């Protein structure tokens, strides 16, 4: 007797709580965890409970027959006190009735999901015999599980016991047989209900994946014609025969790697699984099969295997077998693992992909523009496709179709990246694949970038979208061409006949022509008209609503439209103004749907002058450039004021250009590069000028803005910098005047911080300046000032110095720089006015000084000077100021004396003088002290 009489306080707690016995029983059966719903029943009386308890203890026979069941089947019999009031309540009912009722309810097939729940959580089933209940967790050893009553918030702890699910199920079986009121044991019922659910799922999924048109069309009356009459077999395809065949061929090349060895192994599942483990030649397949098997193992463990499942696998096997017979050669996947179909909308790219894939025995998984296309999502989906196989009936290998991969740039790029990564991973591991396959199958499965092992078909409208550039290089590209009008018309006619719509063939051909053989829009239009009970009117097809897929043409197409005049085939379309207006509309919508106005105008600007149009008076050109100028102004204004709505006026500027220059012959259109090129050039030159400007001493630089320099003073400055009179001879051969000139030039160059530097001339540059040396390296001005006066196709008239002269100048400027640096501040301060005026006085003076220095050699002078100065600047701590001033004056004097020697010719002497000015030198001993400790005797002090 496991029901103890509850403690008084527990009873009080439970007074308010009462149970429905049915519910409780259900829960018992299903191992449902507490808490139960506690419907509040205020009528429950304490006395009754007491009485019931008494009565229970008095009637052991009933309890005897009932309790063992609950012991076995109910894992949480004593989990909380709730069970005892329930039992008490039960006791109110007539005993006999109660037993029957309970048994019935107990045997009722439980809801399926609960069984699943039990089966999935096999490990955590609690064995009732060992259940220990306590209000304190500390009293239970081992794992325990808290249970809280929802009303009172009272908490007890139950001991956990882990057991295998099998035992539990067996117990259930035994139990069911003992209470044999139903024919089938509970396990069988469970299975049946499972199977029903399973079949339902199977059916649903197979219906989902069945894209072919079934008999349902009649039920769904409103079905789109496009879907209804979409080709379901390969032969019905409307697209180009050649393309179709090539796509099919490509898909067929996958057969060996996709279907290759699975056939062999699907004969017996267990055996093949084992075999695959030993010889995993086809990793992907074995993996998927293995996971499938694992998933099924749960089901097949206890019960007999599901007939449906085995059926499915059997059919699968036969299916594969057929396919294998078709293609028995064992070759690897095709060279290009990705197929890229591109072409204008409505030509049946998607249809072709689907039909071909289905034809080859694949299940098509489509990722559309409407799906989530972030890189992570795409990757998981591709991995799904590549690695998993469906558990359900349709276990054909999957074929991934990524529709409109060019659609959203950012997202589409994610997909492209993932695919690229997979393909590249494949290529990378192509060599080492064999040993990896043999060695570790499981570890390779966990690798992040799994190689691509299923066909992937990408579909795009615009092949030249930048996002697709990498994909284009590795994929097999097929460009769809428009099917002939007659073909489209035939199909349209057939459909119209099927639908009982009366049309005339030339109306259909006009429609096809108008939509550029976009079958989808043709069909949609036809259906729309049919619905409205209107007939197709040839005259106003344009005015009729023709639904077209939202599309924008590529930039090249737009430029071509602008520069190319369509041959007016239908001259009979009476008034020229109408066609003009149509053209107007067409161009306007074309340009505005593309939207890249500045790029479009760039392209026009780049190409318009290359066109061959008849323009003797240049007025066409002028007006075209006028339009371009207007667009520039407008664009600039929009950018300045951010009034984006003004963009609406930009596309109309294209139309006058078109009307001026459009020609019948096909123009050769180039991508606009000049703008970008000029821009980068500008930035580069500005940067070089700016850095040069920073180097110029500020007293010059502040009078020289970069802009005015480039616009006004570059050319004169260059004239000054390269005087034609200078001869590259040794300096002592120069006449007095030439020396002056040289010196002033050097000063000028130094003060503008210009110098000649070795540069590698590219051939184009050397062509530009023919006078300059054409060898690989030449001396050029350090900021390339000549670049600012050299224009394309114009030779500048400046005299260019010879290489030898440049070398001399570079040398002199370098020397001057050093002199200035060592000359110090005062020298700089004294110089600027002279430099500004380019006054030869200073130069003359220095030369004179040099002559002087020639006359009387100075060797012993500097030390004496320095000593003298040293004595004058003896420390006078009393007035520091004076000392410092003397020091300053001393240095000034010293500099002046040194400046006397500043002649380029006798650097040697100046160097000695400089050395002599510092009679003592300090030599640093690195790392250690050279101090020597030596013992000194007292005697040495004294003697």
């Amino acid at each position, binding site marked *: 007797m496991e029901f103890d009489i509850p403690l008084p306080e527990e009873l009080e707690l439970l007074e308010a709580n009462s149970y429905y016995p049915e519910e409780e029983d259900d829960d018992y059966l299903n191992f449902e965890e507490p808490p139960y719903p506690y419907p509040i029943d205020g009528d429950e009386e304490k006395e009754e409970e007491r009485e019931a308890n008494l009565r229970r203890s008095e009637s052991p026979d009933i309890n005897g027959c009932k309790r063992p069941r609950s012991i076995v089947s109910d894992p949480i019999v004593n989990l909380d006190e709730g069970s005892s009031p329930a039992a008490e309540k039960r006791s109110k009912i007539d005993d006999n009735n109660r037993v029957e009722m309970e048994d019935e309810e107990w045997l009722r097939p439980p809801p399926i999901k609960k069984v699943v729940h039990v089966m999935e959580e096999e490990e955590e089933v609690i064995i009732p015999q060992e259940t220990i209940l306590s209000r304190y967790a500390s009293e239970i050893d081992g794992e325990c599980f808290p249970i809280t009553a929802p009303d009172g918030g009272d908490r007890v702890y139950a001991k956990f016991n882990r057991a295998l699910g099998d035992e539990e199920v067996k117990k259930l079986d035994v139990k069911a047989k003992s209470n044999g009121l139903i024919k089938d044991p509970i396990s069988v019922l469970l299975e049946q209900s499972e199977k029903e659910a399973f079949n339902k799922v199977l059916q649903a999924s197979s219906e989902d994946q069945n894209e072919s048109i079934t008999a349902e069309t009649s039920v769904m009356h409103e079905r789109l014609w496009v879907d209804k009459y979409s080709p379901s077999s390969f032969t019905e395809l409307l697209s180009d025969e050649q393309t179709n065949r090539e796509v099919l061929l490509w898909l067929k090349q996958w057969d060996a790697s996709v279907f290759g060895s699975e056939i062999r192994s699907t004969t017996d599942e267990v055996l093949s699984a084992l075999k695959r483990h030993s010889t995993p030649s086809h990793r992907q397949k074995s993996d998927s099969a293995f996971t499938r098997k694992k998933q099924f193992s749960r089901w097949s463990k206890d019960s007999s295997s599901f007939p449906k499942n085995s059926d499915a696998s059997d059919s699968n096997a036969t299916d594969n077998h057929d396919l294998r017979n078709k293609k028995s050669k064992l070759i690897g996947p095709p060279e290009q693992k990705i197929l890229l179909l591109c072409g204008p909308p409505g030509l049946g790219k998607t249809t072709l992909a689907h039909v071909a894939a289905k034809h080859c025995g694949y299940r098509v998984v489509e990722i559309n523009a409407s799906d989530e296309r972030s890189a992570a999502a795409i990757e998981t989906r591709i991995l799904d496709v590549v690695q998993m196989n469906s558990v359900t009936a349709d276990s054909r290998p999957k074929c991934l179709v990524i529709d409109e991969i060019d659609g959203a740039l950012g997202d589409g790029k994610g997909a492209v990246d993932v695919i690229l990564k997979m393909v590249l991973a494949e290529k990378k591991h192509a060599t080492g694949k064999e040993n990896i396959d043999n060695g570790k199958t499981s570890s390779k499965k966990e690798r992040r970038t799994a190689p691509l092992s299923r066909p992937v078909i990408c579909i795009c409208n615009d092949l030249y979208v930048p996002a697709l550039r990498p994909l284009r290089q590795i994929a097999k590209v097929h460009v769809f061409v428009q099917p002939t009008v007659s073909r489209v018309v035939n199909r349209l006619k057939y459909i119209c006949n099927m639908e009982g719509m009366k049309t005339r063939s030339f109306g259909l051909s006009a429609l096809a022509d108008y939509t550029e053989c976009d079958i989808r829009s043709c069909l949609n239009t036809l259906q729309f008209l049919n619905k409205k009970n209107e007939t197709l009117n040839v005259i106003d097809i344009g005015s009729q609503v023709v639904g077209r897929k939202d599309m924008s043409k590529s930039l090249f197409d737009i430029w071509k439209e602008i520069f190319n005049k369509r041959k007016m085939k239908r001259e009979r379309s009476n008034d020229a103004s109408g066609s003009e207006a149509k053209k107007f509309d067409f161009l306007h919508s074309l340009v505005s749907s593309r939207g890249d106005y500045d790029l479009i105008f760039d392209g026009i600007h780049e190409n318009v002058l290359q066109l061959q149009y008849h323009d003797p008076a240049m007025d066409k050109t002028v007006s075209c450039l006028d339009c371009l100028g207007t667009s520039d102004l407008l664009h600039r204004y929009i950018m300045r004021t951010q009034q984006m709505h003004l963009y609406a006026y930009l596309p109309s500027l294209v139309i006058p250009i078109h009307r001026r220059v459009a020609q019948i012959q096909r123009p050769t259109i180039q991508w606009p590069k000049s703008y970008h090129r000029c821009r980068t050039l500008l930035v580069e030159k500005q940067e070089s000028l700016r850095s040069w400007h920073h180097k110029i001493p500020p007293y010059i630089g502040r009078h020289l803005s970069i802009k005015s320099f480039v616009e006004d003073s570059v050319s004169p400055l260059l004239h000054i910098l390269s005087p034609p009179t200078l001869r590259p001879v040794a300096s002592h051969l120069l006449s007095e005047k030439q020396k002056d000139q040289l010196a002033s030039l050097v000063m000028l160059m130094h003060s503008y911080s210009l110098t000649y530097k070795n540069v590698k001339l590219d051939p184009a540059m050397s062509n530009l300046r023919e006078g300059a040396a054409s060898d690989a390296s030449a001396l050029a001005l350090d900021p390339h000032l000549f670049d600012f006066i050299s224009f394309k196709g114009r030779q500048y008239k400046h005299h260019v110095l010879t290489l030898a002269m440049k070398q001399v100048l570079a040398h002199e400027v370098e020397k001057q720089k050093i002199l200035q640096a060592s000359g110090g501040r005062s020298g700089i301060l004294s110089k600027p006015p002279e430099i500004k005026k380019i006054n030869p006085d200073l130069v003359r003076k220095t030369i004179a000084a040099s002559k002087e220095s020639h006359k009387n050699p100075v060797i012993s002078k500097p030390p004496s000077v320095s000593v003298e100065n040293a004595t004058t600047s003896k*420390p006078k701590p009393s007035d520091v100021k004076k000392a*410092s001033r003397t020091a300053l004056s001393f240095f000034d004097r010293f500099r002046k004396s040194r400046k006397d020697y500043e002649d380029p010719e006798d650097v040697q002497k100046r160097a000695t003088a400089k050395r002599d000015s*510092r*009679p*003592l030198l300090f030599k640093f001993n*690195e790392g250690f002290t050279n101090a020597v400790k030596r013992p000194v005797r007292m005697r040495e002090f004294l003697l």
Partner: protein
Amino acid sequence: MEIRVKCGCGEEGCSEWTIVELQGVVDSQSSFQGSVQNLEIGRLCHSDSSQESYTFTVGYHELTGSKVTLKKPLLVLKKLQKCTDGSSEKETELQVVGIIRSKILFKTRPKPLFSGITSLFCSCLLL
């Protein structure tokens, strides 16, 4: 043996000397043939800022150092030899010339110097 140490500066206090400690050698240019008489060694400048830092310019180098108080003060002695009482025996005497309590230590790598010196307040001590 008795050595007499005499301090001659009773009244005005001993003059204080300072050691300049360099890590390296001060050499004269070769053109002076090793004679360092009457040559300027360099300029020792005391920066005006609060911390006791000195710059010492020798030749092309500028050294930066700091004043360090010696653990044990040193005496600067001068040896005097006197003839006492007309006898031939000389009496040696040590005279205290100064006391050294601190040194200026230049232990960092010198900074090479090419152009003019920009020093602020220089109190030049020639040693």
